[in-house]
Structure formats: structure tokens, C-alpha cells
């Protein structure tokens, strides 16, 4: 009897669950589409200090004498994007030695539960003048961040929280912007009636879902045939196997859209191994893709989710503690795409394969060694 109730409940979940969530928000799509054309304000050549519109928040009440103790609760360093980003952040801390007395970080290893504990420990530690948070997930971290914001100035970046409690939330335009840039380019460049294969990492990650929702919409608007949307788990071998199967099945794939660029080279290699011409493709700002693009003169574009956003929270935290106004409560950073015109500016074969070109780190101390370059 009990068993039956359980299964009925699960089945009820199965039938209606799919409707319960929605990553396709047309209003947000339009907002991000508009932001792509906004001219950034702020210092030239330093996109991590620029902003696309936005208000200024008064921070006089947080003003205190330096140097400051900064704390950082990190969701994790479980992928190369976060590794490059965290390296940027540490370099930014070193660059502000005069203002920073200590920088303490806790790594949540991708676990919401641990990150909540980490944030609580920081708040109780009296070792933090300001707290920077990169949330593992939006919903789960909201209460902990709200509680922290009652005691400390909090700066959130990358993923947000459902709350206005943080002094500011910093991130680039976002997932829809990425999807729009990649899909519009592919739609424009493939021959009429051409077919596109979409490669995604995994379902359920908000920013990736937004990228796909935007791309799907663009392809639909332009009447492009999407022959498949497959999940690769970010695994090169699986990516290559899937693409090989599609080439086998359809004989010809004209375009490949990707929600993240880490496996773009593996996808291209599948075309090489099958003896087919390269497709029109979007990657991301990883060096291996940029180098392949330049070498093989691909028809390509690289939308980005710049890692330079990891520099901004440190700058913001110091400004807040000095009582200087900062952009907020949302601080939108520019999110440029790499195109054939500016490719040469970003490609650098001295850097490791999955180094993200838009790190904004070229002028920092110990570049390129600190980022693994030669």
C-alpha cells in the first residue's frame, strides 16, 4: 500500500515535472539581445572594470580603514574555466597587496551543502571584512548569502542569488547572449537548407540551458534544420563518437553549434577522420580551438563567457570597503565574441590548450607562467 503511494507520487512527478521548470525566458532573451549592442562604459582596454549600463550603489556605510581581510567562498575549481578564473582572482589579489591584508578561500567542491557551511564559518570567523561568493547554485545558496549580507558586505559573481541583499552581483551578459552570437553566425554562414548538429554538455545547468534556449530560438526563426542535439558530458571521446555517428548517418553536416567550447577540437577531428570538409562552427575562447581555427582557416566564431569577471569582485570589494560607489545591484560586464577579424589578437600558441583567451590577464605579473604558458 505504502509502496503504491510512493510510486504514484513518482509517476505524478514524471508526468508534470517537465513543465515545472523553464529555462526559456523570452524577456531575458530580449534583454540580453539588447545588451549585446550596448557600448560599455569605463576605462578603455580594461573590460573587467567596465559596465553595460547599471546604477551606482552608495557604499559609505561599509567604509573602514585598510588593509582589508577578504574572504572568498568558491563553488569549486572543477573545470578549466574555473581554474583560469581562480588564477585571475589570485593574481588580482596579489596586484592589490597594499589594500589586502589577507585573502582566505574555501572550496566547496561543487557541493551546495558544503558551501552553506563554508559561508557560515566565514561569517562567524571575524576574519572577513568582505565576502566574495561564487554560488554553486542560485536557489540553494540564497539563504546563506542573505544571512551573510546582514553582517558583511557581500559581492556575488558568475551565478547569482535570488536576493537583493548582496551589495552587487557581477557577471557578463549571460547565456542567452552566448547562444544568440553562436547561432546567428552559423545560421548566416551555412548554405541554404543546410543542417546543424547541436552539441551540449549536460542538461540542467542554468547558463548552458539558456545558451541552448537562445540558439534553438534563433535556428527556428531562421528556418535552420537542427538534425540533433546531443549531450557529450564535456568528454572528448564521446563528442568524437557522436559526431562520427552523425556524419555516418547524414553524410553531411554543415554546421556544429556548441554550448561550450572545450570539446570543439574533438568535434572537428571527427570531420578530419571521416575525410569531410570542416563545418561552420562556434567554439569558445579556448586556445586549442583558436589555434585550430587559425591554422585551418575555419569559418567560425567564438562567443565567450569571459574569465576576466573573476578579477572584478576583488576590485569591487576593495572599493566597497573604501566607501567608494560601485556599479550595482547588478554589474554587467561586456561579453565580446572572437571573430575572424580579431582572431589574431587572441590566439597565442604559448598558452595551454584550455586556456581561456579572454582572461584579461596578459598585463598581470607572472603572465604567462602563472597560467601555465611558456
Amino acid at each position: 500500500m505504502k509502496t503504491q503511494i510512493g510510486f504514484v507520487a513518482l509517476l505524478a512527478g514524471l508526468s508534470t515535472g517537465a513543465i515545472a521548470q523553464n529555462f526559456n525566458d523570452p524577456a531575458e532573451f530580449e534583454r540580453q539581445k539588447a545588451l549585446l549592442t550596448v557600448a560599455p562604459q569605463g576605462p578603455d582596454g580594461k573590460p573587467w572594470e567596465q559596465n553595460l549600463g547599471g546604477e551606482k550603489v552608495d557604499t559609505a556605510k561599509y567604509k573602514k580603514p585598510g588593509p582589508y581581510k577578504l574572504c572568498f567562498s568558491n563553488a569549486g575549481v572543477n573545470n578549466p574555466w574555473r581554474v583560469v578564473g581562480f588564477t585571475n582572482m589570485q593574481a588580482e589579489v596579489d596586484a592589490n597587496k597594499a589594500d589586502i591584508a589577507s585573502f582566505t578561500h574555501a572550496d566547496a567542491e561543487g557541493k551546495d551543502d558544503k558551501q552553506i557551511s563554508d559561508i557560515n564559518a566565514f561569517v562567524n570567523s571575524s576574519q572577513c571584512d568582505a565576502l566574495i561568493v561564487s554560488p554553486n547554485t542560485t536557489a540553494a545558496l540564497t539563504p546563506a548569502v542573505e544571512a551573510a549580507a546582514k553582517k558583511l558586505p557581500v559581492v556575488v559573481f558568475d551565478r547569482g542569488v535570488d536576493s537583493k541583499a548582496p551589495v552587487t552581483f557581477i557577471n557578463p551578459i549571460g547565456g542567452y547572449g552566448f547562444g544568440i552570437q553562436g547561432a546567428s553566425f552559423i545560421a548566416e554562414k551555412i548554405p541554404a537548407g543546410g543542417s546543424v548538429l547541436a552539441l551540449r554538455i549536460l542538461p540542467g545547468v542554468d547558463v548552458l540551458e539558456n545558451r541552448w534556449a537562445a540558439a534553438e530560438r534563433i535556428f527556428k526563426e531562421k528556418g535552420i534544420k537542427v538534425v540533433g542535439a546531443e549531450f557529450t558530458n564535456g568528454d572528448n571521446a564521446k563528442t568524437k563518437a557522436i559526431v562520427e555517428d552523425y556524419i555516418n548517418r547524414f553524410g553531411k553536416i554543415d554546421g556544429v553549434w556548441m554550448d561550450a567550447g572545450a570539446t570543439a577540437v574533438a568535434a572537428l577531428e571527427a570531420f578530419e577522420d571521416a575525410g569531410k570538409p570542416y563545418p561552420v562552427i562556434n567554439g569558445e575562447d579556448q586556445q586549442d580551438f583558436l589555434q585550430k581555427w587559425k591554422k585551418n582557416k575555419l569559418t567560425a566564431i567564438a562567443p565567450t563567457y569571459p574569465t576576466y569577471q573573476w578579477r572584478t569582485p576583488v576590485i569591487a570589494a576593495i572599493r566597497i570597503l573604501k566607501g567608494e560607489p560601485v556599479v550595482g545591484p547588478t554589474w554587467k560586464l561586456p561579453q565580446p565574441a572572437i571573430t575572424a577579424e580579431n582572431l589574431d589578437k587572441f590566439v597565442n600558441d604559448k598558452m595551454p590548450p584550455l586556456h581561456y583567451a579572454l582572461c584579461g590577464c596578459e598585463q598581470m605579473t607572472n603572465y604567462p607562467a602563472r597560467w601555465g604558458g611558456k
Partner: protein
Amino acid sequence: MSASADIAVARPAREIPVAPLLFAGSLALYIVTALATGQHAYLTGEGFVGLTQRMVALGIVALGQTLTILVGSIDLSVANLISVAAVLASFIMKGEPAMIAPAVLAVLALSAAVGLVNGLIIARLDVNPLIATLGVGLILQGLLSASFSNFAGSVPSAFQAFAYGRIGPLPWSVLLLFVLAFAIWLMLTRTRFGAHLYATGGNRDGARLAGIRTERVIIGAHVLCSLMAGLTGLYLASRLRAGAPWVGRDGVYDLESIAVVVIGGTLLAGGRGGVWGTLAGVFLFATLDAVFNMTGIDAFPKQVLRGAIVILAVAVYAVRSRGHVA
């Protein structure tokens, strides 16, 4: 019947007292690190509450895992069941306080059902428990991810009291963990089911010859283990304000729960061990998290250390055992 009692009584008395040693060692490590790094806030009452809070999720599921390992089985499906439970809870509640009771009942019923299925496949179909529970875990995760791809629903604020509420300085959830541990300890040491559990884990054929219905014991252990996983899912839904289909897997609760049980001195082959050792193992893991935070060790060396500590913690007492280990 008498044979089973003998086996139960024959639990080792002269062995290393794993639980107190592990607990004292972890505590010493924690205090020394806090003093050495000058982070005295970790030594206040609030600091220790934070430390015990880190034990809750892993602790509850590890209590259940203790039972399956004691009976000579194992459960790899707990992580996925935790996700299912968390999602189902918040999906049924949808923020409505009135739906708390139905949701909790549904989660516990479903968990018991999963435990029953695990137990039946293992005891009746004779499928190796690793494969059976790995398979059931995959099935659960697949069904779950097919229907939910993100946080589903939400829990009402009344239900958040489960994870955030306190009696005086002590969080409810920490209290619950210790009450559960005490209850299971009573069950293991004071009831016939407990004695049968040890007997079946120690020597299944012997126990059967002594008249114990070993199949039922195994199924019972699995049902209890799954119920604990369900409770962990409820706790996480309360703490995260909603359930997401990845909370169990991201928490690596399957492998970590097995590791803490074995670190706590429970024999992987079954038949020997208990809940206090498991709790001490959970305490070690919570301490490590806090100590790594205090010392600011990077994520990757941390993994290397954690792996080495898991092996060494088991080796310390396993090395004295006779006979072969595979």
C-alpha cells in the same frame, strides 16, 4: 537461535577502540589547527555547532550504510535515492505548509520501496549487492533526470526549520543525527533483529542453519538504509530550500558513506562494527573539511590527502587482522 546470540555476543571486546580514538584524534587535529592558524572563532560554541552541522547529511546516510555493511551487503544507490527524495519532497510541497506531511510520507514510502527492491534483488535473485544497487541507482537517476532537470518546487519555510531551526544553541538536525544513532545502537544491541543482523553478516550460511531467516534480515537492513537515505534527502531539501536532481551525486554520498563506515571500524565483509565508529568516521570527514578551510590548502592537494587519509585510517587497525583480504 542460541547460535545467533553467540555470534552476536562474540563481537570483539579486545580490539582497538576505533570510535573514541578516531574521535579524539580528529578533535585534536581540529583544535591544534585552529590554534596554530589563530582562527579562534572555530573554537567558540558557534564554531563547534558549524562543525557538527557539517556531519548531518553524510552522518544520516552513513548510519544506514552501516546496517547494510554489517549484514554483509552494501548500497551504492543511496546517492541517487537522496536526489530522488530531495526532489520529490520539494516537488510535492511546492511551498505549501499543508503538504509537508504528505511529502514526508511519500518520500519515506518511496525510500522503503527502493530498499525493498534492493533487498529482494540481492536476497532473492542472488545478485551481487554492488551490481544490484549500482543498477537500481542508475535506474533511479535516469527516471529522475528524465523528469526534472533543475530545482523542482520548493519547501515552505516551516519545513526549513528542520535544517535551520535550533533548540537553544543546538540545531534540530544535529540532535536528530544523534537520536538516530542512539536508536540504531539500541536496535543493534538490544533487539533480536540486531543480533540477527550481526549473525547474518558474520556467517550467512551459519545463521541460516541456526534458523535465522537471513533473507528477511538482509531486506530489513536495506529498507532501513534506504529510509536513512530518504531522510538525508529531506534534510538536504530543507537546507537547500528545494531539491535538485544532482544533490546526491554531487555529494558523493555513496562512496563517502562506505568510506566512513569502514574507517569507523565496521568490517566490510559484515558481522562486526557499529554506529559509533561510523559517527567518528563522519566526524573525521567534517573535521578535514574545516581544517582544509582553516589552512587554505588548495582543492587538488586536498584530494590527494583525503585519499591517503582514507587508506591510512583503515590500515591503522586493519593491518593487525589475520587472514586474507581481497
